[in-house]
């Protein structure tokens, strides 16, 4: 009964989305505030409908109602409660419902918080958001209904893939989707701006908090997903340039570019067309991601079950939505007008360069992700594009961006002083050089690339400090004045500082980990040992344990360093009878910022005695890989708490000095 009510609520959500699109469009044409209010009410109602449907789906999962096809295919009575709830978005159908929930939620939020926007712009935005909701809800209702019943329900479900039974994986989709779909508001605002034919500082100030919120959530979502891949897949790596990872990374890159170009549009009125373009592109990449993950056209460890029919439908949605948006852009963009002038050396130019590098990097990732499809369509050959391609193309572009980054915030608007910036950054240059040389000389084995990477990380962090010193006039003004200036810094400035700092922390971790990680694999009998990264690991014993829905072998592996005990790792190898699957449960010993990462492999027999394949990795500073992006996401949220950047605030205010 509840499932039927949920399905009905979902259909109501679709109807209200259609009403939202139609009423708001009519409101714009007739300039009617009554119709506009009705459209906004419909946006709210659509969200309530989808939220009820989502609640019904979670209810079906929690009560293990196997008469619902989606539950039968993805849940099991023995599954722990967290994964029953998470099972609601662990499947294709459920994740589309989560997408619709986020989409209508953002629609309702934009309608409610849009009071300060010009009426016409606001009505068009709500209408476009309603149109997006209509398309995706129609797809969900007609092509992938998560609440569809089975004619003959099974007694027991099929269980969720055990690789997916993990807290990080259970909670990362909501973050990811809140980020992905948050770009829809930016998209709607961009379309509205094109239709209204006006992009000004108020528009940019309104778009930036939505982009900030979406980008911050996406940052957290990607980080959680990457952390999951790191400890759950047991491959010792944290980023694989997998098509599905790229699908979430591309909107992130575009949103990062958008955040920077929107500043130029807000402060100087320039780059209006480009900012609008990025607003369209960010959500287009989100939709491309949804298509890539579900279509089965790309091989990926993360992809949902293969179903080409749905892939084609999503491709049509993608083509029509993006196609019409970009066509509108081509038609209307020339009318958006030119902004202020700026010299070749200026804050504007720095941000333009930032955008060019981010856009070029996005393009290389896009091409690498889609090239196998293009190549196969043209020649029929199956190929895959792996990490070497991305390392070769993406890394140099990003390196350029990172090296230029600290100079940007120090440049003045309109006309900057390159020599002055150089003078302010010479300490940071020395810090970076010292860090690089120290890494090269002191860390063994010597690695030039790794050392250069660490120098870049140090450069970023020192650059952030130099910028703070500049803003607070530390060491030049009295300490009390510097302190006063530091405390008075706007939250937006703190947000930028944190985001750039987080990037520096991430770069340090990525370069140290990639350059100096160590790996060892040995077949060990009880009492056997292996060495990795200066640690001596001894396999003490292997015993059986029972989990809620699995049986496991658990090893006790004692690690010592220079004869002193360090920790005991307890990796597991689990068997899930419901799906007949085996997974490895990695053990990680946290050693400061570094990780000792131990995987228990398969049991084999050697002369009648059992032996186990044990793999161990030494991942130096791996914590920074995940901690850095968290600081970045936090920076976004701190910016969002700035009075001038709060969601829904777009009044013209004088900039405090």
């Amino acid at each position, binding site marked *: 009964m509840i499932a039927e009510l949920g399905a009905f609520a979902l259909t109501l959500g679709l109807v209200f989305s259609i009403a939202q699109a139609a009423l708001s469009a009519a409101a714009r044409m007739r300039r009617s505030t009554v119709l506009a209010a009705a459209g906004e009410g419909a946006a709210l109602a659509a969200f309530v409908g989808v939220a009820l449907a989502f609640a019904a789906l979670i209810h079906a999962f929690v009560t293990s109602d196997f008469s619902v096809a989606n539950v039968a295919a993805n849940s099991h009575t023995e599954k722990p409660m967290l994964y029953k709830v998470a099972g609601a978005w662990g499947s294709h159908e459920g994740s589309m419902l989560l997408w619709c929930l986020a989409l209508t939620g953002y629609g309702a939020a934009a309608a409610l918080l849009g009071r300060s926007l010009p009426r016409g712009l606001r009505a068009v935005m709500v209408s476009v958001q309603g149109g997006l909701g209509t398309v995706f809800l129609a797809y969900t209702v007609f092509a992938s209904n998560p609440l569809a019943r089975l004619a003959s329900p099974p007694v027991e479900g099929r269980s969720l893939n055990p690789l997916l039974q993990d807290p990080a994986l259970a909670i990362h989709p909501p973050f990811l989707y809140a980020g992905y779909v948050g770009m829809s508001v930016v998209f709607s605002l961009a379309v509205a701006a094109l239709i209204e034919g006006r992009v000004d500082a108020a528009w940019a100030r309104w778009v930036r908090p939505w982009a900030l919120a979406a980008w911050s959530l996406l940052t957290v979502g990607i980080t959680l997903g990457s952390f999951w891949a790191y400890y759950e897949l047991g491959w010792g790596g944290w980023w694989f340039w997998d098509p599905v990872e790229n699908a979430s990374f591309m909107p992130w890159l575009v949103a990062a570019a958008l955040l920077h170009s929107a500043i130029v549009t807000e402060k100087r009125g320039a780059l209006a067309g480009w900012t609008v373009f990025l607003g369209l592109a960010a959500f287009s990449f989100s939709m491309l991601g949804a298509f890539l993950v579900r279509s089965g056209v*790309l091989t990926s460890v993360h992809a949902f079950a293969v179903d080409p029919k749905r892939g084609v439908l999503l491709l049509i949605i993608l083509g029509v939505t993006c196609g019409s948006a970009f066509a509108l852009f081509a038609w209307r963009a020339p009318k958006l007008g030119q902004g202020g002038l700026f010299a070749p050396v200026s804050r504007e130019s720095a941000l333009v360069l930032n955008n*060019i590098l981010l856009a070029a990097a996005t393009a290389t990732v896009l091409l690498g992700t889609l090239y196998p499809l293009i190549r196969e369509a043209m020649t029929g050959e199956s190929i895959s594009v792996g990490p070497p391609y991305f390392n070769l193309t993406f890394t140099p572009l990003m390196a350029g961006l990172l090296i230029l980054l600290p100079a940007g915030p120090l440049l003045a608007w309109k006309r900057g002083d390159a020599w002055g910036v150089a003078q302010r950054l010479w300490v940071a240059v020395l810090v970076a050089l010292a860090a690089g040389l120290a890494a090269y000389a002191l860390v063994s084995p010597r690695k030039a690339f790794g050392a250069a990477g660490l120098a870049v990380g140090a450069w970023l962090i020192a650059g952030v400090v130099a910028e703070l010193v500049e803003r607070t006039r530390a060491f030049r003004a009295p300490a009390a004045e510097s302190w006063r200036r530091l405390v008075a810094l706007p939250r937006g400035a703190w947000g930028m500082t944190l985001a750039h700092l987080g990037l520096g922390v991430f770069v340090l971790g990525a370069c140290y980990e990639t350059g100096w990680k160590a790996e060892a694999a040995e077949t060990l009998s009880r009492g056997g040992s292996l060495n990795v990264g200066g640690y001596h690991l001894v396999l003490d014993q292997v015993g059986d344990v029972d989990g809620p829905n699995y049986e496991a072998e658990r090893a006790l592996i004692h690690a010592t360093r220079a004869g002193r005990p360090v920790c005991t790792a307890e990796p597991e190898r689990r068997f899930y009878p419901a799906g007949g699957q085996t997974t490895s449960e990695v053990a990680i010993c946290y050693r400061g910022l570094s990780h000792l990462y131990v995987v228990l492999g*398969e049991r084999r027999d050697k002369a009648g005695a059992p032996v186990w*394949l044990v793999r161990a990795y030494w991942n130096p500073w791996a914590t920074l890989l995940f901690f850095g992006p968290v600081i970045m996401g936090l920076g976004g949220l701190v910016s969002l708490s700035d009075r001038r950047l709060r969601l829904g605030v777009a009044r013209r205010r004088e900039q405090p000095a």
Partner: protein
Amino acid sequence: MSWLPKSPKARRRLTLVAAIAPVLILAVALTLWGLGDSVSFFYTPSQAAKARPPAGRSIQLGGLVAQGSVVKHPDGQVEFNVRDQASVDKVVFQGDLPDLFREGQGVVAVGAFRGDGVFEAKRVLAKHDERYMPRELTKALKAQGEWRGDGATPAYAQPASDKGGS
């Protein structure tokens, strides 16, 4: 600097072009270079026999693990045969097989042929749940008429005894 255009607008445009052009050239050059060098081809054993990839060139070899061919040495080395309908290749792999590796099921081995024709795998990918199979492999099996739907095994790969794999 008299060669610069007089109008500020034109100057700004020139600056933009001067900034964009080198980045674009760099990106395009890197992309072409990267795509030329680091793509890896997917072959089934019979396609590999026809294409003859040179020894040492990284490729992906996909097919079914032949029944009874898996030999696990205590030192961690694994040998098995990957086959399709027409051809068989011997694969050696040092390390931990994926958790879902079974005889009679589809795998993709990433690595290169050695001079003696044995395929040395750096990584072995198996389908990661009962519904997933590498797409290239699904297609190749379908093309050879060996596709029996998800989860089914081709006739020649049916186990003689009922004990399927390790």
